[in-house]
C-alpha cells in the first residue's frame, strides 16, 4: 500500500505542476522552463523552515508558495518589461542558477540533499490522511485554474493572447497580467514542492533538473493546452510511462536519458500529428455561453 500511496502522491503533485504550468504557458502564453525550480523553491523553503526553524509544517508550506511566487515575480518583472522572449532566456538562467546555488550553499544540504524533513499528518492520522490532503489540493488547483479561465480574467487572457497591441488599445495592461499569471502558476508549483518534501522527507537538487522541465512541458502539450483535463491526462500518462519502462529493468544510467528522449519525442510527434493534444481546446474562449450553444468552433 505504501508504494501505491507514493505513486498517487507523485501523480497528484505532477497534476498540480502540469495544471499550474498550463496556466502559464497555455492561458498566459508565457514560455518558461523554470517550473521545476519553483517546485524546488517551495520544497526547500518548507523543508528548511520546518526542520531548522521549527515553523509549523502548514505555515512552512504556505511560505513555500509565497517564496516561489515572489521569486517568479522577481524573474518575470525585468524580463517581461523587455519582451516575452526574454522570459524564456531568463528562465533558463534562473533554472540552472538556482539549482547551482542550492548545490553550493550549506543550509540546503548541498548536492547530497536535505534530509530528515519533518513529516506532516502521517504520524497522527496515517498515510491515508496525507494522500487525501494531496488529492484535496489537486482538486482545488484544478478548480482554481478552471474558474480563472472561464471568468472575466479568462476573457482578458484570451484577448491578450489574440493581440497584445489591441489589448493595450482597450486600456488593458498585458505586462501586469502576465506577471500575475506567472506568479500564481509558479506559486502553485511551490506549494506542490512543500507537499512533496513533507511526504518523502528527503529532497536533492537533481530531482528538480531540466529533465523535469521537459516532463512538465510534455504533460501539458501532450495532454492538451488550455484545457482543464489535458494536463491531468498528460500527467497521468507521463507518470505511467516511466513506471512501465521500469519493468524493462534498464540500468538507471540509461533510464534517465531514455525518459528525456521519450518526452522530447512525444512532444515532436504531437506537434506534427495532433498539435492540440489529447484533449483539444476550442479556438474560442470557452466561457462564452452563446457561442457554445450555437456550437461555434
Amino acid at each position, binding site marked *: 500500500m505504501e508504494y501505491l500511496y507514493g505513486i498517487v502522491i507523485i501523480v497528484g503533485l505532477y497534476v498540480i505542476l502540469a495544471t499550474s504550468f498550463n496556466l502559464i504557458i497555455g492561458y498566459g502564453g508565457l514560455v518558461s522552463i523554470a517550473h521545476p525550480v519553483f517546485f524546488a523553491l517551495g520544497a526547500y523553503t518548507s523543508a528548511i523552515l520546518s526542520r531548522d526553524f521549527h515553523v509549523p509544517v502548514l505555515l512552512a508550506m504556505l511560505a513555500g508558495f509565497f517564496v516561489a511566487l515572489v521569486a517568479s515575480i522577481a524573474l518575470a518583472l525585468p524580463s517581461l518589461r523587455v519582451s516575452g522572449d526574454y522570459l524564456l532566456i531568463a528562465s533558463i538562467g534562473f533554472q540552472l542558477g538556482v539549482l547551482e546555488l542550492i548545490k553550493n550553499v550549506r543550509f540546503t544540504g548541498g548536492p547530497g540533499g536535505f534530509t530528515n524533513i519533518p513529516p506532516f499528518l502521517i504520524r497522527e492520522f496515517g498515510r491515508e490522511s496525507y494522500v487525501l490532503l494531496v488529492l484535496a489540493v489537486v482538486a482545488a488547483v484544478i478548480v482554481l485554474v478552471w474558474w480563472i479561465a472561464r471568468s472575466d480574467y479568462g476573457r482578458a487572457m484570451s*484577448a491578450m493572447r489574440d493581440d497584445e*497591441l489591441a489589448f493595450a488599445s*482597450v486600456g488593458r495592461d498585458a505586462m501586469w497580467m502576465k506577471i500575475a499569471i506567472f506568479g500564481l502558476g509558479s506559486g502553485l508549483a511551490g506549494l506542490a514542492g512543500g507537499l512533496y518534501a513533507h511526504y518523502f522527507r528527503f529532497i536533492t537538487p537533481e530531482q528538480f533538473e531540466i529533465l523535469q522541465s521537459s516532463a512538465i512541458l510534455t504533460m501539458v502539450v501532450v495532454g492538451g493546452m488550455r484545457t482543464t483535463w489535458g494536463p491531468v491526462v498528460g500527467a497521468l500518462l507521463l507518470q505511467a510511462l516511466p513506471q512501465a519502462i521500469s519493468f524493462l529493468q534498464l540500468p538507471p544510467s540509461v533510464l534517465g536519458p531514455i525518459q528525456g528522449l521519450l518526452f522530447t519525442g512525444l512532444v515532436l510527434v504531437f506537434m506534427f500529428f495532433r498539435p492540440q493534444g489529447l484533449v483539444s481546446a476550442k479556438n474560442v474562449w470557452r466561457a462564452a455561453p452563446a457561442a457554445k450553444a450555437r456550437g461555434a468552433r
Partner: protein
Amino acid sequence: MADVLEVRNLSKSFDGIVVARNVDLALQSGRVLGLIGPNGAGKTSLFNLICGVVRPDAGTVLLDGAPLDGKKFHQRVRGGLSRTWQHTRLFPSLPVIDNLLIGTHDYPGAQLVNVLFGTARLKAHDKVARDKALGLLGKMGLAGVADDLVSDLPYGQQKLVGVARALMGDAKCLLLDEPMAGVEGQAYAAMQRVVREVAESGVAVCVVEHNIAFVHDLCDEGVFMFSGAIMARGSVAELTRDPQLTELYFGH
C-alpha cells in the same frame, strides 16, 4: 471650444525617413477632423505617436491639457484616448459581445483578486457593461450578431465592431484609422450615423480616410498631410478643390 487633444511640434523619423515633421494639431470637443493625404503621408504614424505606440523624437501630446509624455498606450487609453485600427485588430477568439466587454474603462476582471474574491462586484460590472455593449451594437445594427464570433462577420461589420469596442471606454478623443476601408452597404450608413452621434455627444474625433465622399459628408474640417508634414487645414471642400494638394494626392 476647448482643445481635447493637442499635438505640439511632434517629429519622428525612422532611419532618415520622416514620418512626422513638426506636426501641430488640435482636436476640439464635438468636432470631427478629417486627416487626408496620400499613402505614406504619415497619417497612421501620427496616430501611433499620439497613442504612445511609437515614441516621438521631439514634441509632445496633451490630453485635456495634461502632457502624455512617458505614459504607455494602455494608460493613455484609460485617460480618455481611444483608437481603431485600419485592419480591425479584433479578438478573434471572442464573440462580438465579449470583444466589447473587454473594452470598458474599468475592467475589474483584469485583477485576479477580484476574480477570486469579488464575484459580486464582477457581476454588477458585467451587467452595466453588457447593457452598454448591447446598446452600442444596436445602434450599429449588430444586435443580432452579438453572440457570433467576430471572425464569422463580414468585414464591414467587423469594422463597426472595432468602432463599438473603441467606444466602450468613455473616450474623450477618438481616432479612427480608415473606418470605411472595405465597408459598404448598410455598414456605410451605420458608420456615418454612429460617428456623427459620437461627436455630438462631445467627443473629439479624428478620421484618417481615403474615401473622400465620407470625409466630405462627415467632417467639420480637414487637414492635408504629405511626407510627415501638415500642408493645409480648412474645409474638406476647400482642400479637395486645391489643385496643388490634388496633385500631391494623386502624383503626376
